[in-house]
């Protein structure tokens, strides 16, 4: 085996919200920190640093992950979606609209993670039962709402996305 020179700052490239991004960072830097510090995407939050609260949730290659537990090297070549890619002020995603209308956000700190978990849930299961909604969001802790209006928001989002699908809208799941 040839002599290996350690590389503590490799170039790592991945797609974030549809855009190719490249960083030079230690492989063990957390994806969460790369998003927030290197890419200045501060929508994704840190609440616990140990994968318990879900406020760092993002979608990676179509799966929900806690970005505080992903070493950025393992995100090489991945497609990552964060809350910043979900919608815009003029074009809110139906999930965002639903949370707005149903009181799904109070202090808002869990909201980005909650929205990504909802997006993941509805991508995999467009018509979840309340039991499935509870399970889909069980990894996202909210201290303000008692979850009730978050469940209502998810149910409302289902309705909106169904309606959008019928009219062939952009957010049809």
């Amino acid at each position, binding site marked *: 085996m040839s002599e290996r020179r350690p590389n503590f700052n490799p170039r790592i490239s991945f797609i974030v919200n549809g855009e190719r991004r490249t960083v030079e960072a230690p492989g063990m830097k957390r994806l969460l920190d790369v998003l927030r510090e290197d890419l200045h995407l501060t929508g994704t939050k840190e609440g*616990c*640093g140990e994968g318990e609260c879900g406020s760092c949730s993002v979608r990676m290659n179509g799966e929900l992950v806690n970005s505080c537990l992903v070493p950025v090297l393992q995100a090489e070549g991945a497609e990552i979606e964060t809350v910043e890619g979900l919608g815009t002020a003029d074009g809110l995603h139906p999930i965002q609209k639903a949370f707005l209308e149903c009181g799904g956000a109070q*202090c808002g700190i869990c909201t980005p993670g909650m929205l990504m978990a909802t997006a993941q849930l509805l991508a995999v299961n467009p018509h979840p039962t309340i039991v499935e909604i*509870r399970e889909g969001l069980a990894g996202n802790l909210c201290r303000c709402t*008692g979850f009730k209006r978050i*469940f209502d928001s998810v149910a409302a989002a289902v309705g909106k996305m169904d309606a959008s699908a019928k009219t062939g809208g952009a957010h049809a799941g």
Partner: protein
Amino acid sequence: MSTSEKARIVGTAVPRKEGVDKLLGRARYLDDIEREGMWFGATVRSSIPRGLIRSIGFDRRIDWTEFTVVTAADIPGKNHIHLINTDQPVMADGMVNHCEEAIVLLAHPDKHKLREAVDAVSIEYEPLKPALSIEESERQDPIVWGADNILKSFLLEKGDVDSAWATAAHIVEGEYRTGAQEHLYIENNGVIAEWSDESGITVWGSLQCPYYVHKSLLAVLDLPEDKVRVIQTETGGAFGGKEDYPSTLASHAALLAMKSGHVVKMAYDRMEDLAATTKRHPSRVRHRTALDRDGRLLAMDIEVATDGGAYSTLSSTVLSRATLHSPGPYVCPNVRVTSRSWATNTVPYGAFRGFGAPQAIFAVERHMDEIAAAIGIDPVELRRRNFLHDGETTATEQVMREPVILDQLLDRALAESDYYERRKRFARENPSSAVKRGLGIAAFYHGAGFTGSGERYLNSLAGIDVTPEGKVRVLVANTEFGQGTNTILSQIAAESIGIDYDDVEMAPVDTNVVPNSGPTVASRTSMVVGRLIERAGLQLVGVLHERAGLKQDFTRDEFFAACERLRKQDGEVVSRCRYEAPEGIFWDDQKYRGEAYPAFAWSVQVAQVAVDTATYSAEVDEFWSVQEVGRVLHPVLAGGQIEGGVAQGIGYALYEKVVWKDGRMANNQMTNYIMPTAQDVPPIHIYFEEIPCRFGGCGAKGIGELPHDGPAPAILNGIRDAIGVGFNSIPLLPEDLFAQLNAQESKAEAAAV
């Protein structure tokens, strides 16, 4: 658009004032903020609960010239946090009185080098014997605070308790305990501080009370008022945990900023926030109750003890509220409450949603069910026979001048929960089921606003102004942290003036911009500050009528045109109002007698619980909460407050245990401090009865804390119903339920031998 009797905006579900930023990930919380050339701050903390500091060592493996190092010696002003007393130091000086007490502060531009440096500071102590519980403090050996370890005491007396025992048909005693509870806001504490010679110190932070921080910094930094500026950043949850602690954190960051000459950010991670910041006061409450043959209360002798931690902070006011809520919503001719807050060598306790009431109400509502069982009366009936009604007096001899509708709330709660039918069904099903079900209730009030003359002392000032750009701004120091402050105060302003909700915005919570309208605590915002904004709005319109030619029925354009005419006269358009105490509020702070609170919110809650006899774990199947909080200003926000408070109350009862090891929180991680998840919180049904309050903002009374008062006793009463055993201590984890059942079994076996 004009002034109108009917509410157009208040009472409707307008969109939250902060708009869509939270949903887009654009809301900027403290740790999202980066400043050029920013340094980071960290804290070296005590590892023992009590002792003398013999030496502070700085390991030579670190190049300390790169760091800014701050100790108590660097404090330009007073080494104390200005709260009620001034016994809490900003930093330990020669002695530590609790684990995690700040001893050395460090700042450096590199977070990782900072981490290494914290580990490279070694403290040598001469340990002293600590007091680590109420009982240890009561022994008064060692004395760890003042002359007798007593942070505060109260004595409340009504009638003559001692005369009642002889004639009582029943006497029932009980002891009830509550543990510490952590706020677990999902955003940890954090501040950024910046010093400049021109402006002085500016602090941005996740906080509830900018003027508390302001006042503290004046003393610590020895600066004049105009050289200290405090700005609240978007705050990710608070629940009381950011009421006083930010004063300490801000002082630390400010000291580092001043000494280093750099902007300094201090944002705690979860492990540090859990271990080092405030929590709910643990309590022990003892009841001795005399009743007549019909179960009517003759006398209540109550002893309240709280654990205040190492410094007094808010222990006196928490104790006050506990004292005043300990007799429950009942009529009783003879009441004595003896209460004490005890100093221990643990992290000082602080404010947490309910502020002494959850502790006191847990005890009295559990005790009512124990009384019911002891004397053979249904717990619902027992409460009915003793409920307060209009015109009756409380333990402080306050006459209930506003309507008291406890019976109505109880009726509704029983109906909505199908209480009697469900209990019948469980009585049939439980014997053959491994999972036993039951229902429990709790009835309670929560005094809105500060106790007695507290509001007079606060002397709050709030206002409304109009900018040249045509925006009506609410000027308050009250903070949004999810509960909806921004929204409801904007609603009230729009309503009272007679303009659109969208024309109103909140001025930034910046002590350079807004007046001191008091802290965002004690469920006072909608009632007290809302009333100030309501008056300010009416006052503004009045002035515009008088001096700027505004007609009685005006359009939006006419309103703003009149404002500009006023601006030409006065140079500004602003309307301020100062707090005015309602008529007839008399409170004797010495005797603890009179109008304890200007208004009360009322509630009855029902919990259906399921106890799994294989695993000893209790869960809440379903929950109902009926409440009267005056006018509901915003149905979605109000509902959210009740549901969130109930969820925290469920955590308080069954999940959230602080594990102590030698005075330190051993389970300071979210993996091990357990709050209920989306799969644990049951369906919560809420119902409002509305009776507008004469002196609350647009008729509102306080709402935020009320819902946290009832779940714990309702749940433990439900457990008693389900398995016939009363548990008197929370949090009640399966291990605790098992241990008590096991102990009872062993006792029974021993007795049978």
